[in-house]
């Protein structure tokens, strides 16, 4: 019998991100939401994934609950395989050992270029200023496949980002290699609070792959300031499972600092 499940947009985004992580692979995890995605994945789906944090925590198995805002704390880096520093951490990605990278973003464009530096105005005189790259530029430059996790809001999906903080496919096919970035790298998926996107092999443009159960393609596309390519068949993503929600709400973020958001519902 059909049952309706209630969740927030953030919970859905985290849950579908967690399902994308492959077991037995390595993943370079960015600050913020990607940490929570990786925690959920490791708890439920991928016990043999090796996470890496930019300051040199190799293979951490975070203690839950998540201490908001922290990344380098004893909870985050618990039971790592190795503790190093930043220059060594980026050596693991620069030599090709990082299968996946996972990053949040302020803005993203059709080529998967990420802006986390400023919105509006100019760089010298921005309308709003944010934290900038952190290690995101290295993650997006070095990892074989970069997964971008971003709320599905129109102002975040723009034809051209205000500032390329971390490189996607830049201005199209071949542009990464031409700039000198490592061959065969680039954005792989964009995980949002409504849908999942990939990138077209030929044009390198963002392509809608699937949508949350009960959400139409038009609902997804009307929220974006550019029109993505559409996969020949658009898949359906199930909403968060009971297990995913239980781990998120009871184990990872009992105070709901991270997982709160817009209320949503779907058929379980």
């Amino acid at each position, binding site marked *: 019998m059909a049952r309706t499940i209630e969740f927030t947009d953030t919970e859905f985004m985290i849950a579908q991100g967690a399902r994308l992580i492959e077991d037995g692979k390595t993943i370079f995890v960015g600050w913020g939401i990607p940490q929570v995605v990786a925690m959920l994945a490791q708890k439920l789906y991928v016990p043999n994934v090796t996470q890496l944090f930019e*300051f040199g925590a190799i293979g951490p198995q975070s203690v839950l609950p998540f201490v*908001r805002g922290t990344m380098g704390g*004893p909870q985050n880096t618990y039971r790592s395989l190795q503790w190093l520093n930043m*220059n060594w951490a980026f050596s693991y990605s620069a030599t090709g050992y990082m299968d996946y990278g996972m990053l949040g973003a302020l803005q993203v464009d059709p080529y998967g270029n990420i802006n986390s530096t400023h919105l509006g105005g100019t*760089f010298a005189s921005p309308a709003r200023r944010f934290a900038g790259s*952190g290690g995101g530029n290295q993650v997006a430059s070095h990892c074989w496949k970069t997964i971008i996790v971003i709320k599905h809001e129109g102002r975040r999906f723009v034809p051209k980002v205000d500032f390329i903080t971390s490189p996607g496919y830049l201005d199209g096919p071949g542009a990464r290699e031409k700039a000198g970035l490592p061959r065969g790298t680039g954005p792989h998926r964009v995980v949002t609070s409504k849908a999942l996107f990939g990138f077209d092999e030929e044009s390198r443009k963002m392509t809608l792959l699937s949508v949350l159960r009960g959400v139409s393609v038009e609902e997804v596309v009307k929220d974006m300031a550019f029109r993505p390519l559409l996969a020949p068949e658009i898949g359906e993503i199930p909403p968060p499972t009971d297990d995913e929600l239980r781990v998120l709400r009871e184990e990872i973020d009992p105070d709901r600092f991270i997982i709160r958001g817009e209320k949503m519902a779907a058929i379980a």
Partner: protein
Amino acid sequence: MTTDRIRTEGGVEYRFVHPDDFREHVRDRKGRSPVPKLFTAKEAVAAFVSDGDYIVYDFSSLTRGPQSLIREVIRQRKKELWIGAEFTLHESPLLVGAGCATRIDVGFLGYGNYIGQAVCDGRVKTYEWTNGGLALRILAGARGVPFLPTRDMLGSDNMKVSAAKSITDPYTGDPVCLVPALNPDVAFLHVHQADVLGNARIFGTNLFALEAALASFRVIVSAEEIVETDEFRKDPMRTTVPYFLVDAVVHAPFGAYPGAMPARYEIDLDHVDRLNAIRTDEQMGKYLEENIYSVADHDEFLDRRVGAKRMRELRRRATIIEGYR
């Protein structure tokens, strides 16, 4: 290098010291003799930090950061500082809010609305080097070379607002990014243990503790605990920084407060939330007055603003010991 090898360059101002000038500083000004260097924070900051200095720190405002030294810099109202904001959360809003810092190499600019607004208002200039780029600049400074190459930053707009250059690599013929060495004036390291000579130990990860100590003109270590030199000789794998890189040792229990010191005390999230909530100059002024200007030093801050009860509680909550000793 002929100039036609250069493909792109940002051309903005950047901190640079010729490696020979740094070497001569090391030859002439850094003592090799193992002598006690215990200072109070007040003495160390007064002696080794000047207006206009470039400063870096390790690790984070939430974990093992040299927060008592940052507060002392603010208390002494240093001016025109240029900060290397790597893994930075609260250092930048506090230093800019207090009028101490006017230029920031980013890194990670910082947390909260205050610092972003300060950039928008033109109160502080930023240059975008990225975390990896800044760490590599400090490694170059630590290796005594003028630059190091890397295969990131390329294609991004950070190349336009830093002094990184894209050149044609003479080995592959492909474009490669170069970043110039960074030799900061001062590095602040907060460590678990140090001896009076300056040998220092960090337990856990770090940003670039050894690189920053090697690359910086002056190094101030603040330590939770002062131990005997023999402790280092018994377990040399665990030495983070040897004494001759260090100019001053400050004994600073709870020096990372309100951040955590792994295996010693936990983060004070209530205090961190107060920092995160600062949006206006009025709120910033109130915070600085209450926690920095109105107390004489770190000890008085701990006694009067934090309190023995809270410190006991934070110590009690530091239950993760595995991996730290």
